[in-house]
């Protein structure tokens, strides 16, 4: 449980990072890179949802709302005020975080399926507002012409964001930072408090954990990160419309974290990448694609209720202890 990194771990981490950086060399087609960038966006979304559902045990069925609010906030601010992406991504996080804070305050005293359905409501409500508040959001017509991030120059590296590879690198940094942040958090007293709430809220309160405050914290941070992912999405696809941020997307995110295993950090990332790529792999199955996807999900849940990574981890721990 301690956060110490041994030398071997450092080495493995470096090798992994190098491998990830080299990806565009091996998969230079924009199609692949697009899938990888989408995987990165989903990885952030999945981690942010896992913080809420996996670590603090609060089922949220409206996570895509924060993703959407972030995307819209960032796109509209940058279009109306001309601020660069590097500023608006923080605005997106702030707006989505504020919204999730308010919603969290309202709903987090509910539990289980009551919470799930109420969060679903806010998810639907946000979609409806995006669709109908024409003056602000342009409704179903969506927001086109979103600017790309302004180029950045680092020693030895310039990212112009005219190519998918540039986005890939930026996404890599994004995923890395979020993973690092959440890794530090979940391995701290805060993470411990969240785990305590997930495992046994009554007991957690009895040992002095302010359950409501921590749940709201996780919900807010999760929402804010989702909002930032939304900003990244908006300035990547350059066009957003409400159809991207529906309840189906919220459920899709839940599927990802369950697939990967939501009580670890790697699980959601794995789930996000696997389930972003899987439907693309299944394109060759043609019209059977979604049937296979659905059946695979059913078999999977029956087979591996802890998720792929969760199962591996739990078996490994069982073997140790």
């Amino acid at each position, binding site marked *: 449980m301690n956060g110490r990194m041994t030398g071997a771990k450092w080495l493995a981490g470096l090798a992994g990072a190098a491998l990830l950086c080299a990806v565009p060399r091996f998969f230079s087609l924009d199609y692949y890179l697009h899938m990888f960038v989408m995987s990165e966006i989903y990885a952030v979304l999945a981690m942010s949802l896992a913080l809420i559902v996996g670590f603090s045990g609060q089922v949220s069925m409206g996570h895509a709302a924060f993703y959407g609010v972030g995307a819209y906030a960032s796109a509209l601010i940058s279009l109306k005020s001309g601020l660069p992406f590097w500023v608006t991504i923080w605005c997106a996080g702030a707006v989505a975080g504020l919204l999730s804070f308010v919603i969290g305050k309202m709903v987090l005293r509910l539990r289980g399926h009551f919470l799930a359905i109420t969060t*679903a409501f806010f998810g639907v409500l946000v979609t*409806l507002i995006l669709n109908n508040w024409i003056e602000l959001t342009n409704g179903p017509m969506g927001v086109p012409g979103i600017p790309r991030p302004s180029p950045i120059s680092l020693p030895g590296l310039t990212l112009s964001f005219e190519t998918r590879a540039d986005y890939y690198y930026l996404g890599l940094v994004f995923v890395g930072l979020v993973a690092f942040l959440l890794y530090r958090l979940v391995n701290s007293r805060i993470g411990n408090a969240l785990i305590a709430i997930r495992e046994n809220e009554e007991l957690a309160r009895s040992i002095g954990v302010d359950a409501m405050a921590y749940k709201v914290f996780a919900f807010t941070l999760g929402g804010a990160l989702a909002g930032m992912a939304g900003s990244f999405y908006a300035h990547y696809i350059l066009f957003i419309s409400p159809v991207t941020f529906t309840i189906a997307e919220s459920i899709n995110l839940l599927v990802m974290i*369950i697939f990967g295993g939501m009580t670890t950090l790697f699980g959601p990332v794995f789930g996000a990448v696997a389930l972003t790529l899987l439907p693309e792999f299944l394109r060759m199955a043609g*019209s059977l694609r979604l049937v296979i996807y659905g059946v695979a*999900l059913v078999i999977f849940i029956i087979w591996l209720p802890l998720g792929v990574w969760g199962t591996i981890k739990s078996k490994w721990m069982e073997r140790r202890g």
Partner: protein
Amino acid sequence: MLMVFLQQALNGIILGCIYALIALGLSLIFGILEVANFAHGEFYMLGAFMALFSMSGLGVSFFPALLIAMIGMGIIGAIIERAVFRPIVGKPLINSMLLSFGLSTALANLALLLFGADPQKIESGLADYHLRFFGLHLTAERLMVLVVGVALVTLLAWFIQSTRTGKAMRAVSQDRVAAQLAGINVSRIYTVTFAISGALAAAAGTMVGAMFFVSPEMGFSVTLKCFIIIALGGFGKIRGVIVAAVMIGLAESLGGGFISYAYKDAYPFLLLVLLFMLKPQGLTGGSGR
């Protein structure tokens, strides 16, 4: 204005009837097996197709087709319970949510593949008869929906309240182990529950197919609405669910007519959230397990 209000209310009640049929089955499943069935809307969709094909294939008329659809979906429901849901009974709720979501995706897309995306109408033959009374307007088809809906709901309520199997279902939902110890075959009750739920969904699907057409994607939005209804009505509570279904029907109809139609999908949720804020223990009191 009053006439418009009454007309909207009448429309809402008829809608509520349909919702009650679907939500009751979902609620039974939730109460007895303690799993969330997000594929319930697909039962309703498959039921509608079954009625459609028995009319076009077997040449039967509307009401026999309704019956065939109910029996057929009863059987399919039972099979799905055994094959898909049985292994995850007793697991956390989120597992059944995801599992049934997968099932829903698979069934909806299978239907798309087999039946085509193209929507079709079930001919009840009643849509062109109009009833007018006190300035209100109703087609015979909608009246039929009201009558059949009320009849089926009453039948179900009687079944649950008074028959041996119905009582056993209640017993299982209140305490599964005690039911086992009383010699109730819990596994059979699970199957019966899914069969009844499937049949009710098929009835609703067939009637909706007559009013609004049948298509493979008709299921999903209904499922979500029915989850709101059972949360509103109290999980596993028959009377609560019926009341909640009618409330949601009215909310959609009146809210859609008088507030804003564009936000129609939000009203059921809004009702639910208001209820949670004002009365966290649910519509009929007591905590939802």
